[in-house]
């Protein structure tokens, strides 16, 4: 007999629990506006904190109605920042022009904001694996549905 219950993806569940716990809401913001395809700036509002995170939403997934997915995008932006050794690598990874003043502003903003985000959520809250996300496989499917199903 086939099991129809969805697989449990702990990372997605943690993300969902975090959204619920901190009552996170997400909005688009135009504080940092890089003229690049998929680039958005997101304002993440917690009960007593707010963060503004510039990020790449290359698949156009951001939706204010899907806070778990939005949190994943925010955490993915933090990972991109942390993995890049420096500004030039970050620009290259995201396909930005390094001489763009706004890119530099975004980088500098992330440099200040990412440690705060990490401190706020702790190490346990992590984005879904990038590979799976890009392939749209596994946990990504749950991630895209989890806010809709409830």
């Amino acid at each position: 007999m086939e099991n129809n219950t969805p697989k449990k993806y702990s990372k997605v569940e943690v993300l969902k629990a975090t959204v619920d716990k901190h009552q996170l809401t997400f909005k688009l913001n135009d504080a940092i506006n890089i003229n690049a395809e998929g680039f958005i700036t997101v304002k993440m509002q917690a009960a007593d904190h707010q963060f503004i995170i510039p990020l790449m939403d290359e698949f156009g997934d951001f939706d204010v109605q899907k806070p778990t997915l939005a949190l994943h995008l925010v955490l993915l932006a933090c990972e991109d920042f942390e993995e890049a050794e420096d500004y030039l690598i970050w620009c290259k990874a995201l396909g930005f022009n390094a001489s763009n003043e706004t890119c530099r502003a975004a980088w500098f903003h992330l440099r200040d904001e990412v440690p705060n985000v990490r401190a706020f959520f702790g190490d346990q809250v992590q984005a879904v694996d990038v590979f799976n996300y890009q392939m749209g496989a596994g946990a990504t499917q749950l991630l895209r549905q989890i806010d809709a199903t409830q």
Partner: protein
Amino acid sequence: MDKLSKRLDSDILRKIILKAKQHQYYVFGCAALLLGLFGYFMWFYQPLKPIWKPIGPNLLFALRYDTGLKDSAIIDQIEQLLGEDFSSKWEDFGKAVLKKEDVKPQESVVSWHTAYSESPQVLYNWRFNEKTSRDVLLAIQNQSSLKIRQYREEKIYQYSNAISDLHFYLINRVLTASTSPLLLEASLRVLTNDVENVQPKVVKQLKKDGIGLIINLNAIAEAFDALVGFPKHANSPVRLSALNLVANSKKIQAFYSENTFAVNDKSIRQTAFTKKSDLLYNTTQPLEKAQVSKETKQRLSLLKERFGFDVDNLRQGLSNTFTHFILRSEYVLQPYQVLAFPLKDSSMVSSELARLHPNVLPNAKVFTLIKQPALPNLILPMKLDAFPNIYYLIQDSVLWLSNFSLPQQKLKALKAASLSTKGIKVYINHALKFSFTDKLGTLGERFFDKIDGAALYFQRDSVFIDIDLQGDKSVFGRLDTLLAIPTKRQIKKQVFPVKNHYTNALEFLWQDEKTRLHLMSDSGEFLWEKAVWYFAKDRIHQVDIYNNEKLQYAFVSDGRIHAYDRLGRTLNGFPIGLSTYFEAQFLRPLRWKNEKEQRFLVAGSLPGNAKNSGGKLYLYNRYGGLSRGWAPRNVEAPLACAPKLISHEGKDVILALLKNGSFYAFDKNGRVMPGFPLITNLICSSAFLVDRARNIHFMSEGGTIIELDLQGRLLKREQVRSRITGTIFHLLPEQQSGADFLVAMQQGRRLVVKDRNLKAYFTHTLTSDNPQQLAYYDFGEDKKFLLVFDERDNTCRLLNEKGKDWLAKPLATQIMPLLIARNGSRIDLVLSKDNSITVLSNGE
């Protein structure tokens, strides 16, 4: 009859041969005697070998005389005038140094030089015969009190007494001595290097009992050229290089070298001087058509309209030469200047001039004043503005124009000196008070530091030199040629000063137009040349690759890093091949703090169109591999200048300015440091500098100055204001320390220089509006210079801190010159012109 005479001749010949056979010893004896006598005569009258070469433009004048000269009246007079007892110098020397009074030189040359001191320095040359020269050498070698030093593989002796030191050397039977060691060394360099600033041809052979006076007329020629009123030969400018005067008790003769005195008429080469004490200067030259300006054309047409005066008719009446006389005048402020035009058609000229001035009659006896028009300027190819008033006279088919009403006796004297006589009366400078005293005064100061006036007169059998050494010090700096060494090929770009790691002496390294690398010592000796086949893209650096305190030369070419040792040998492992998809532009050899390994940071661009091409930074180790820990870095734009390595808070930091105005700081792993980049979006192409407070300054092409700190914070962004479009902005780092800077703006011919706070420093008017290359040097108090190099005109100038020309005139150079401060206040300027490398020095 013929047969008979032939037989008789052969009989006589046979008899003579027979007799000779009988008396063969006598015959051979006579022949030997005759040969011996001939040989003796040849030996006795053998021409004296040249013993001396003039030391370039530093030479003021030199007197050459036979020491056995019986009539030394001329020398006495010269000594009296100079106040210097040079003829007895040898006797003093013999007594003091050689302890011998009976040894005498055959010939002496005493030369006065202006370099190395404010007052002229004297160089003595005494030539001996073979025996005397041996005695002198022996006497010198037996003197234990003499100090000896080596220079150019020759021994220089130094004799010291309570008053002064005398330095001397003995080469080829000539003892050369001077109280100035620098002058002596210069003379040795001239002898050993065969450097001939004044061609040796002009140093004519001196006959026995003669006196030769050699005057360097370069400076004077320029003075003549610059003087308004002195005519020039239109086709071949008069370039007097050296005048050689040979005098004996009968006459004085002047010799010019054909090459150096380029005039149409070669008869000027050897001319006996006319003995007219009033005549200072006269020359006859071809009359060429005047260059008529627009205004003059208008004026001429007006004259034609009003009076019917036609200057072309007038010209047709003139013959094709004219003579220009300058006479001593009783008027303190102006000499007589007289122009004499022989006439082809006297009546045509008279009638033409009568249209303007009916009161001037043909064959009048006195000069008549006319005010209009300025006839000399209408007729002559050059402009004479020493003619505020014109007097003219037509007499005996000659049109005379003069600036004063010339007295009859002077006119007679001039007529007596045939117009065809070509002679030059020489004067050195401006002791004579006439109109261009001011101009000459200024010029004189340029050429002679302390010589207020100097004149040379020839009267009867005597030469008079009148020199006044009491003048004020020149306002101009003096740079005399220390070295002028021919190079085989033209120097490419620039000369780099390098250090000899053995002696710490300065040496010069450059690449020629055929890529050969040349090393020259400070004293002008070529040490080696090396074919390298590639042009250096950036400057040539000195590096200690083996970490053994020995220095090598490294540079980057298109695709390679080259390194050569001090002897010009290629270092093992070099050249290092660079990545193929990369155009190297800058090399920065570096060594991390507390590490021994020499590394090479190479910056360049990626090929592609200018819009998309980015920059790239590679770090190589000395073995040719990519340095560990540094991944080649791509940056978004090519670099504007070579990157720099500095140490900040104990860390190595590499600074790089990109052409798009972004400023990066990388750590030793090539990571962009926190706070960087600073993005300015300016177009930058010049170097940045790091000041003493560790702040970074750079300037965009549009004149925006940026100041940032090493945290990447923007401290200042200021636009240098310019009302004129097309202004060229320069940020000029001080070349010695690189820590201070000036800001310069070139607005056409106007050069505005400001200090680092953009407060006006000075404004200077350039001679052309060509874009100039500038370099700022600060050698201390009163020794700040702005070097201005005009690449198009191939000239350079030095401005002092007041923005005034420090040199009297621009110097010719094909490369950006190099200014070097030596010990004390001495400054050397290294430049290249006419395929030679020249080192000029103020000799202080």
